[in-house]
């Protein structure tokens, strides 16, 4: 009995840790939809959902229950296997990427050496869910959405990758934990300052990668109804939704880790630093992540949708040249040992 426990102890603990990451993530996704509707509501001088539960707090629960109960319809001319596997292909990378996310210096499920590369590789696989869904549906609208999404993601992934190259030059590592530790010192030691153009480009590319407004041509309600998920209903649709919001949170958390010092306190290096030492590092990380999530919602409430050719122009002709130029600048700064970041 003891031997058996020794054998299964590690797998059991890993499964428990996965549950400890995924369960709060799903809850965060649910309440991100609520926050989105409330915040956009207030920005448009409406109240937003306020009927289910006090102040509408139970609205996301009601939505989830509704989607669970609904029938999953498979169109008769659709490719049944691919149609049903597409939502899984879109949520699996969105969740798997969280395996290497460091929440504090010690709190990380898999502290692998090339965690930044791992996340980039997995987020680039999320597009398959969209493409396969669009093709398997066998409908013009869905297919157009999938094609738009594929072109957009390939375009912005390059700019995103170059921005990450800048981060790993500055951090001297591909490991997210070490990248955060390289930013220790003060608010001005964080990488947002020396890598400011890359920071902006990373975040905008992240918005484009997650197909969020103003880059949501893959859904484009006014032109192609709902794009790639036009024929999906019930839980299959909900899984796409979950993947999109989990990806948003992932991009926001990555931006916080790589450019805003992750779990490091923003008051480090100031005279009142000691007042905040009792605050756990996770709190700072979540606060910074929430800031970026608010930007996501703010952008959606503010900007009209980009035209398709403008999206392509911005990605290929503006972002990629800027990132390459800034990599050269950064290389020069590294060679010149410009402090406090590159010494």
């Amino acid at each position, binding site marked *: 009995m003891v031997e058996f426990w020794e054998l299964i102890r590690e797998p059991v603990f890993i499964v428990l840790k996965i549950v400890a990451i995924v369960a709060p993530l799903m809850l965060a996704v649910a309440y991100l939809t609520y926050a989105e509707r409330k915040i956009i509501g207030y920005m448009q001088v409406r109240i937003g959902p306020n009927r289910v539960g006090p102040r509408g707090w139970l609205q996301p629960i009601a939505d989830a229950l509704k989607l669970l109960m609904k029938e999953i319809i498979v169109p008769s001319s659709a490719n049944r296997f*691919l149609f049903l596997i597409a939502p899984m292909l879109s949520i699996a990378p969105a969740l798997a990427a969280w395996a290497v996310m460091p929440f504090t210096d010690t709190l990380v499920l898999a502290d*692998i*050496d*090339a965690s930044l*590369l*791992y996340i*980039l*590789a*997995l987020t*680039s*696989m999320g*597009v*398959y869910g969209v*493409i*396969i869904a669009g*093709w398997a549906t066998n409908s013009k609208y869905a*297919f157009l959405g*999938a*094609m738009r999404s*594929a*072109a957009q*993601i*390939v375009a912005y*992934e390059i700019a995103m*990758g170059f921005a990450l190259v800048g981060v790993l030059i500055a951090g001297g590592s*591909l490991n997210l934990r070490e990248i955060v530790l390289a930013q220790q010192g003060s608010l001005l030691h964080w990488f947002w300052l020396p890598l400011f153009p890359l920071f902006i480009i990373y975040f905008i590319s992240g918005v484009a990668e997650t197909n969020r407004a103003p880059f949501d041509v893959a859904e484009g309600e006014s032109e192609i109804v709902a794009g790639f998920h036009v024929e999906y209903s019930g839980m299959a649709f909900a899984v796409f939704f979950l993947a999109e919001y989990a990806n948003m949170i992932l991009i926001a958390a990555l931006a916080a880790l790589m450019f805003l010092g992750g779990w490091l306190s923003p008051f480090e290096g100031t005279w009142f630093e000691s007042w905040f030492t009792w605050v756990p590092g996770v709190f700072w990380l979540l606060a910074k992540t929430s800031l970026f999530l608010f930007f996501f919602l703010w952008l959606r409430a503010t900007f009209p949708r980009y035209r398709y050719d*403008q999206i392509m*122009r911005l990605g290929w002709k503006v972002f990629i040249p800027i990132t390459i130029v800034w990599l050269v600048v950064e290389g020069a700064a590294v060679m010149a040992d410009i402090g406090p970041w590159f010494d």
Partner: protein
Amino acid sequence: MDFERFIFYFFAAVLVFAAGRVITVRNPVHAALHLVLAFFTCAALWLLLEAEFLAIALVLVYVGAVMVLFLFVVMMLDINVSPLREGFIRYLPVGLSVAALIVIEMFLVVRARNFGADAVAIPARHGADYSNTRELGSVLYTDYVYPFEIAAVILLVAIIAAIVLTMRRRPGTKHQNPVDQVAVKSSDRVRLVKMKAEERQ
């Protein structure tokens, strides 16, 4: 059979299956998707070889970008399979002889005398602090710096050639100038005219 060997045989079986389906399946989109599966399992096998960087780069470049573009093209084509199968018998001798030639060449290079357990020592497992990425980088930029740079230049030439070959200048097409669009002021578009109120009739 220990766990690692089980993982190896599992992924190897999936890889062989997927690679076989790439050439046997009728639908080109399904073939491309099987190729994606083949790349992905191949990356998993590379992880077992402690080639983490190459494995993740394979997923990032081939699965994440190249195959997306591949699917992009294949999905838009409406390939009718039956004309492709015409002349199967006619081309069979040529195909078989090419295949036989390739098999002989591979046999000459990749055989037990060159790559068997006697010829190549079984590599030792590295410690937990071994960084595949760091090792690869330091070798690539010291011992192999000239081949690496030459490969980079060849790639650059290929990129430029691809652009030059496909670029067509069509006169008469209309396109916007974003600089002009951004520089526009309201006074360029709308003219406000002051006028007296007209008499009531």
